[in-house]
């Protein structure tokens, strides 16, 4: 039963390799872009605001850069933890507890992410 599958796998693998070879220059350009410039501030702002809008506890109309998670958006400390965790996932970074506690508004989050060079 499994032996019958084997030729199929090798064909698939060959296809994979064929595909991988021309992809190499693309990977190189990508690395260069990543090293030279950080993220565009506007893009960070939009992504952070979108995360907030995605929370079902948050009133979409109240979302703004200056909005404080607690005072303006009505999020408690546990919700704020979830917001910061969502930001971590969005930008593929890990935010240490100490820094996470200081992020209390969208503007704080944007500021923090823009300082992290490994964010993408």
């Amino acid at each position: 039963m499994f032996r019958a599958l084997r030729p199929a796998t090798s064909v698939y693998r060959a296809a994979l390799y064929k595909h991988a070879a021309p992809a190499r220059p693309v990977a190189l350009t990508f690395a260069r872009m990543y090293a030279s410039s950080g993220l565009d501030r506007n893009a960070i702002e939009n992504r952070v605001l979108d995360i907030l809008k995605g929370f079902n506890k948050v009133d979409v109309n109240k979302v703004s850069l200056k909005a404080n998670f607690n005072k303006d958006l009505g999020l408690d400390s546990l919700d704020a933890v979830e917001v910061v965790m969502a930001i971590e996932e969005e930008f593929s970074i890990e935010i240490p507890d100490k820094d996470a506690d200081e992020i209390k508004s969208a503007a704080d989050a944007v500021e923090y992410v823009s300082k992290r060079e490994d964010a993408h």
Partner: protein
Amino acid sequence: MPAPVRRSGLQQEIISLYRACFRAARLKPQENRVNFQKFIRMQFRKHSDVKARDFATIEYLLRMGKRQLETYSNPSIQNVHV
């Protein structure tokens, strides 16, 4: 510059535990992650009526929470039902 939020040690511990729980949930299979998140929220929220001064209860719940986290951090646990 806004003054840093003053939190009691216990409150800080709860927040750290909450974060640790969500980090543990990230290591679970993608399709079950939502279940873990729901479970974690439920476990924390169901005690939201505990008084802030009731240190004994809070400390007890923290210990319980930590033990529970240890349990479901085990990679063999793939899903949770709520």
